[in-house]
């Protein structure tokens, strides 16, 4: 079964509630301690900061026009970037799983480059590439397309940094697909497109959606790669992370924390949704 396969319990298990294996208390202790210290304790700082504001103040900060504009820009750019990654990722995963060609292993290794490359490096590199005098910028300028210092630049930076997600979620599922249905359909003379639509896609789309959602979540928080290429025009190409950065520059920790809390809550809700949805889909898959 694929990476996504969830808790299958052995048929020999007498009672899932009973703990046979050792180390529960220890691993629970270590995990909770670590999560409290590393993840939860710092969040208290944020809560303390925002607790110092009245509800009206808080609401005023997070619904400030310029901040709202930045939500829109960030959401739109992340949506477009993750959709693009959905299509590109599906194609790359398909090619890597189904075909043999020279250089395949190299391509497979390169896919993870955006994870391994520091975002600031990605930022200056993309800005240099897409600027009017850059390698891509020159070509695009002749076509009348401006990328650097426009909202499109944000999309490019976000796409780059979250490209591997979709490929890596779709790849294992595609590898493990049972071939019988597909072969039967093809031998009965169904067209390729029909087979893909009716037989392959239904098994693929949960993984595809998960990848797109992960890519979206990652794009919402991206900062390093974006600021170099965005142009940062108020109301047009400012991302929410930059808004937090600006509030920090103004020594307004409360406001910075308020906006940060919006991003944090949105990301958490997204993640929880992805995890719950995955679990549900897995249960269906195992017929439980």
């Amino acid at each position, binding site marked *: 079964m694929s990476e996504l396969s969830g808790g299958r319990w052995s048929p020999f298990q007498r009672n899932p509630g009973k703990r046979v294996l050792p180390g529960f208390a220890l691993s629970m202790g270590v995990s909770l301690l670590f999560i409290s210290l590393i993840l939860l304790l710092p969040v208290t700082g944020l809560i303390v900061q925002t607790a110092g504001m009245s509800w009206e103040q808080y609401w005023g900060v997070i619904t400030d*026009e*310029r901040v709202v504009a930045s939500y829109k820009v960030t959401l739109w750019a992340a949506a477009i970037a993750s959709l693009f990654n959905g299509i590109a990722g599906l194609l790359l995963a398909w090619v890597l799983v189904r075909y043999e060609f020279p250089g395949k292993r190299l391509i497979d290794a390169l896919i993870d480059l955006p994870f391994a490359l520091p975002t600031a490096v990605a930022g200056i590199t993309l800005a240099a590439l897409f600027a009017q005098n850059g390698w891509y910028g020159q070509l695009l300028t002749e076509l009348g397309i401006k990328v650097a210092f426009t909202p499109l630049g944000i999309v490019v930076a976000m796409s780059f940094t979250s490209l591997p997600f979709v490929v890596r979620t779709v790849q294992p599922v595609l590898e493990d697909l049972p071939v019988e249905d597909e072969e039967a359909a093809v031998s009965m003379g169904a067209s390729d497109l029909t087979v893909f639509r009716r037989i392959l896609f239904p098994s693929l789309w949960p993984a595809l959606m998960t990848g797109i959602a992960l890519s979206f979540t990652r794009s919402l928080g991206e900062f390093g790669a974006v600021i170099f290429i965005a142009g940062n025009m108020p109301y047009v190409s400012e991302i929410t992370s930059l808004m937090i*950065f600006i509030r920090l520059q*103004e020594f307004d920790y409360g406001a910075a924390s308020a906006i940060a809390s919006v991003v944090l809550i949105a990301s958490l809700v997204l993640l929880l949704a992805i995890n719950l949805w995955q679990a549900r889909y897995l249960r269906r898959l195992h017929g439980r």
Partner: protein
Amino acid sequence: MLQSPRKLIKQLVVALTVSGSLGVVPAQAADQELLNSSYDIARELFASYNELFAEHWQQETGKTVEINQSHGGSSKQAQAIIQGLRADVVTYNQVTDVDILHERGNLIPADWRERLPNASSPYYSTMAFLVREGNPKNIQNWDDLVRDDVSSVLPNPKTSGNGRYTYLAALGYAQKTFGDDQEAIDNYLREFLGNVAVFDTGGRGATTTFVERGIGDVLLTFESEVNNIAAQYDGEYQVVVPKVSFLAEFPVTWIDRSVERNETADLAKAYLEYLYSEDAQRLIAGFNYRVHNDAVKAEFADRFPELELLPIEAITGDWKTAMSEHFGSGGKLDQLQRR
């Protein structure tokens, strides 16, 4: 053949620890250490000044001194100090970033500007224009910046003192031109901001956008910066100094709380006082900053054209008003940038 991963992980960790620990422990060679927290574009200036001062200090006291530099956007730098970075001295490009050190945490006294000459600002500058060679758009003064065919590049007034000064200079020009006509002033500023092609977060970013990326017809930044760029890219750009502009002060002070803890009070004061010496002023003028020392002023007269310099008092009354009315959340700047 690969080894087992367990061994590999072990080796990796060992190798990393060894190589890492070599790099982290700094050699403690000097008798005394000083940390100067400064703004992002002063790196070269202070690298030179530190050599000059270290030599002077050794002659005076016989002690060697190592000066560590921290550079970044000056608001971010001030924040680091508020949050516990123990810098001995600050050399910023905005008065407000030093004031905040008194307001939050009371690290310095309220009257810090009285402690050193010229309101604690050893050198000053103004906002000027950098245009492409031959000045193809014929940009001479502030009124040219609202023309439809001109696009400008400046750092974001929200994140950078440099951008704030440019905004205030434009405001000062508008006040002089339109007098009490608030609507005309607002319209001018709206068009001025509307012509900006890119808002970078800092001064250096704006320069990179203008120079390396070829965006915009005019870059607005400190006169010192403009001259440095023009010298560096000989024959590609030219400097335009407008008739009227903003008086940008560069405040310096020692952080009482830190020098007490680090036991560096004498050294920190000497470090800042020496900025006013003729040698240091000459060095600073060499970096295209305007200075107070008369002898040095005469030497560099041809480099700094005369213009009317407006202090903050002439534009908004004081810094507090400027910050709350213009740059704060929902202030004038936010209103004018609404599209």
